[in-house]
């Protein structure tokens, strides 16, 4: 099937919210990097779960509990298939942030020592900075930041220089939520492994938008989140190599993650359950399965092709805006459809507020990436980010709305 804007953005009809109006104008939703909208099939799957088979999972013998367990575990299977990972390596968390914290606390706090180094980058989201800072503070380890080049790429030379004998973890964002940059994570994993360090990727912005193959990338850990991949809030996934999980001590303690609890100590359940304490996000896993199925039905290659074209259109159309600064690479091979920009005369906050009057939702701020903002030399940017349901027309509305906002403020 040929890929083209028309082919994919027709799926917009599957997303009920996109039919709404804002301030009397049709909604143009360009904030999918913050969270995506959900197709009908995801909402229906969760609703049906609660109406038909809601029960607690794993420990129940009765029919309802067996049905609930099988629908819940199907969520794991679907996600594992989407990212080509072993099922037992997929741990449900509440979001991507918890997934990274799980590694930081369960592995980091227990094994890092003073002098050890964690290498991250200047383009990380706070979720892949702060957990390592907390762990460093507790253990005496050090966090080092690889720099970003002027054209918004990871400086691979700088990174290579930072990775050395003391490196225990290299944690890198797969696709930047600010710059759109796609990082060469397979190569980074090799670099980490060459010094016996682990490699974790924050795949929050890649899994929803392009084919991601956990096994082929060779990374040790991958963090993802449900709500950006057309799925519900309240669920994230940590994917890890099973042999690493086997060795790791657990993180959260409680029900389901144990095989025995005695007054003098406890034994752990099998992976992945060892890392899933308490009642898991059951309805959310059902929704995640529907989201993964929806994406796989389209095909991640087509999703990526659509968004690549759209990114090209965005860069072109937005470059026409007078005096605009656009951050991030221009080469479509290494970027997704999240475009951050700034204008000299109008603050991102005012842009977001004023284009909202035209129905357009874009984000303004530091995008949870303050160190990157300091590199870019701006306090904040505005960001338009697309998903499969967006079309070039959406970008046209944005560009026009920015023009109107400018005139409004200039008076």
């Amino acid at each position, binding site marked *: 099937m040929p890929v083209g804007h028309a082919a994919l953005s027709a799926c917009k009809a599957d997303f009920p919210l996109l039919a709404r109006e804002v301030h009397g104008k049709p909604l143009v939703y360009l904030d999918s990097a913050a969270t995506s909208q959900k197709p009908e099939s995801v909402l229906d799957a969760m609703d049906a779960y609660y109406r038909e088979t809601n029960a607690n999972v794993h420990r129940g013998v009765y029919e309802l509990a067996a049905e609930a367990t099988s629908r819940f575990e199907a969520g794991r299977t679907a996600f594992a298939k989407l990212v080509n990972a072993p099922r037992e390596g997929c741990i449900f968390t509440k979001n991507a942030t918890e997934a990274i914290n799980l590694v930081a606390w369960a592995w980091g706090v227990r094994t890092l020592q003073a002098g050890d180094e964690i290498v991250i980058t200047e383009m990380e989201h706070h979720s892949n900075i702060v957990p390592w800072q907390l762990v460093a503070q507790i253990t005496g380890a050090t966090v080092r930041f690889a720099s970003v080049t002027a054209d918004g790429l990871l400086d691979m030379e700088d990174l290579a220089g930072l990775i050395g004998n003391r490196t225990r973890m290299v944690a890198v964002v797969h696709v930047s939520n600010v710059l759109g940059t796609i990082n060469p994570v397979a190569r980074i994993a090799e670099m980490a492994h060459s010094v016996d360090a682990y490699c974790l990727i924050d795949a929050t912005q890649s899994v929803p938008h392009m084919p991601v193959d956990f096994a082929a990338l060779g990374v040790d850990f991958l963090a993802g989140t449900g709500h950006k991949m057309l799925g519900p809030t309240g669920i994230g996934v940590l994917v890890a190599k099973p042999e690493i999980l086997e060795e790791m001590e657990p993180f959260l303690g409680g029900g389901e993650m144990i095989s025995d609890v005695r007054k003098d100590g406890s034994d752990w359940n099998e992976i992945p359950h060892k890392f899933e304490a308490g009642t898991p996000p059951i309805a959310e896993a059902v929704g995640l399965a529907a989201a993964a199925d929806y994406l796989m039905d389209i095909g991640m290659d087509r999703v990526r092709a659509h968004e690549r074209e759209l990114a090209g259109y965005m860069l072109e159309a937005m470059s026409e805006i007078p005096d605009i600064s656009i951050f991030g690479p221009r080469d479509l091979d290494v970027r997704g459809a999240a475009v951050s920009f700034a204008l000299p005369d109008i*603050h991102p*906050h005012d842009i977001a507020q004023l284009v909202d*009057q035209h129905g357009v939702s874009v984000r303004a701020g*530091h995008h949870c990436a303050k160190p990157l903002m300091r590199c870019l030399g701006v306090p*904040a940017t505005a960001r338009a980010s697309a998903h499969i349901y967006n079309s070039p027309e959406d970008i046209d509305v944005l560009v026009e709305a920015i023009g109107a906002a400018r005139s*409004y403020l200039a008076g």
Partner: protein
Amino acid sequence: MGSIDSLYQEIILDHFRAPRGEGSLDAPTASVDSNNPLCGDEVHLEVRVEDGKIAELAHSGQGCSISRSSTSMLAEEAVGLEVGEALERIEYFRLMLHGDAEPDEDRLGDAVALEGVAKFPARVKCALLGWLALKEALMTNAEGGANGHR
């Protein structure tokens, strides 16, 4: 929620386009850096308190129209006030932005125009940025410190 024109009134845009009190002081008795985690806005505010009164106030930084105009209005309003009085008005301004106090021009001057911000909860912090920085500066000063950091 609220109408956009109640947010961007002419008087607000006027303060935004020509902010009062921008710059720095020669001999501040307190200075504060404050930022809005929501949008990354930053304000640097300096104040000179003499005989229990605000003798001078200056500010610099980067921000949106709301935070800049709000700080400009503050600069116009605060100079000459006693410290206790200024703190009272800051609190009154805060209450107005949360919809818990009526706009009162005697107390707030041009800043009554920011009443409409109450209907845009995401912008309340923008409007408060400079005012809370002044509060911190005045508290620092009360405690005898010359420089407040956070």
